[in-house]
């Protein structure tokens, strides 16, 4: 659906005290939660609850946490349940999953809400490729759409849909592809490529099937390990899954090198000014050793939106952001 991101976000109807979702939507949502629970129970993955008031902040590029001032010191709302889940893994929990509240400051739109539900799980001894198959199996079973998967490298997706090679494109060509908005990303190549990705590439992904974007550039590796890609370049062992131009999942073959992870988190913290603090217990757990594993985070509200064919995440939640 090219251009659909610009269509007006249909919000909830009726008086502001009323729920945002219809009763039928809530019933179907509950059924999807139940099927998710059965999916993991059948596969021996342990369901866990994770805390909502974290001692330190998640430090994902471009994702801003809420900081709370509490009597015992600041706390941070999780932008994903990644930290407690990885601490469990480091402590020997084995495969774990959770459907947890997650919070991201300043994210609001048809596909975003500052408060949402994140489905996240980890598989011991798996890599990103094997996990990707499981993600698509779950999505197919929840939405009823066949598990037909297209795997596209990040580089190939840019070549095919934006007509540029993101690794070698010169600044003038990049500016020409962006058009009128080039000025706002001038001198910031990463931002310019992000803008091409959201405006030119993503609307074409996952049309009539599931599309996985893989082999992200090393600088967008987040907490994924690096490996040598097909064309000899260093790439991140990371995937994102799209359907109808909408990103649903972000998975990694997890980085287990504690020193490398600490230096990535340190660099991310230095680029920020929002009063974020390191999550010390998470850092200690990583030093104690994260076992080899693959993990994935899924925007559960988006998955419900897709399964129920609703036009916005607001209509999947009993009370959407505007009515909380």
């Amino acid at each position, binding site marked *: 659906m090219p251009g659909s*991101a*610009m269509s*007006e*976000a249909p919000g909830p109807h009726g008086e502001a005290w009323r729920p945002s979702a219809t009763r039928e939507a809530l019933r179907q949502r509950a059924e999807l939660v139940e099927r998710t629970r059965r999916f993991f129970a059948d596969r021996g993955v342990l369901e866990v609850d994770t805390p909502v008031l974290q001692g330190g902040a998640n430090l*994902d*590029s*471009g*994702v801003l946490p809420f900081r709370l001032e509490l009597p015992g010191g600041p706390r941070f709302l999780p932008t994903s349940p990644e930290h407690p889940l990885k601490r469990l893994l480091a402590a020997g929990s084995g495969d774990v999953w959770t459907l947890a509240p997650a919070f991201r*400051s*300043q*994210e*609001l*739109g*048809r*596909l*975003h809400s500052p408060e949402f539900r994140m489905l996240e799980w980890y598989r011991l001894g798996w890599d990103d490729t094997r996990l990707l198959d499981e993600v698509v199996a779950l999505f197919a079973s929840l939405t009823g759409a066949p598990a037909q998967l297209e795997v596209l490298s990040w580089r190939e997706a840019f070549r095919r849909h934006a007509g540029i090679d993101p690794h070698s494109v010169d600044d003038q060509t990049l500016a020409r592809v962006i058009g*009128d*908005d080039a000025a*706002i*990303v001038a001198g*910031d190549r*990463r*931002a310019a490529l*992000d*803008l091409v*990705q*959201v*405006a030119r590439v*993503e609307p074409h992904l996952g049309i009539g099937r599931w599309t996985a974007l893989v082999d992200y550039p090393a600088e*967008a590796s*987040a907490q994924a390990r690096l490996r040598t890609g097909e064309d000899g370049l260093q790439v991140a062992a990371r995937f*994102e899954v799209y359907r109808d131009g909408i*990103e649903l999942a*972000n998975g990694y073959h997890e980085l287990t090198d504690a020193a490398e992870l600490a230096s990535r988190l340190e660099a991310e913290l230095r680029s920020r000014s929002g009063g974020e603090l390191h999550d010390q217990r998470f850092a200690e757990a990583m030093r104690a050793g994260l076992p080899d594993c693959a993990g994935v985070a899924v925007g559960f509200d988006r998955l419900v939106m897709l399964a129920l064919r609703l036009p916005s995440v607001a209509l999947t939640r009993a009370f959407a952001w505007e009515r909380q």
Partner: protein
Amino acid sequence: MPAINIGEVSKGTKLIFDNAPWLVLEVNYVKPGKGNAFYKMRVQNLLTRYTLEKTLRGGEKVEGADVTDTEMQYMYFDGSGYVFMDKTSFEQLTIPAKAVGDDKDFLLENMDVWVTLWNSEPISLRLPNTVTMEVDYTEPAVKGDTQSRVMKPAKLKGTGATVPVPIFVAIGDKITVNTQTREYSGRVLK
């Protein structure tokens, strides 16, 4: 006006870009999974009514515009501008003919309209969607033919504007006119 964080901008927010006030018609937040955030907005210039798409980066600050809508009653034309009265404060305000534009064709004395003020200065007005006007002059009516789509011009009382009307409409008839399309929408039965 204070600077507003782009994250707080929503449909209906009024902002200053290039020294002009703009109304946000639509705003959508987009970002790749772990990357830079962008706000894609459709905005309308409140002076020219021109709309355009504008993209801003997450974390930016924007300047809010002091724009308010006030209900006012039209009183009279003073030769250079249209004089209105604020229905709550009873203060009078003159809107230059340029800001009223073609809306003058349907502006009748004592009519209630919404006036948009920017920094307390009037910049535009919004008429009711439908107004009732009396036909001052038109060619003689063709009686009985209420189905015909043939139209003829009719001059309206009070403003002198001309709109096309069906041929059964007679002088002295009261008709309703859509102020947005400037089209006849019906006859008020006597």
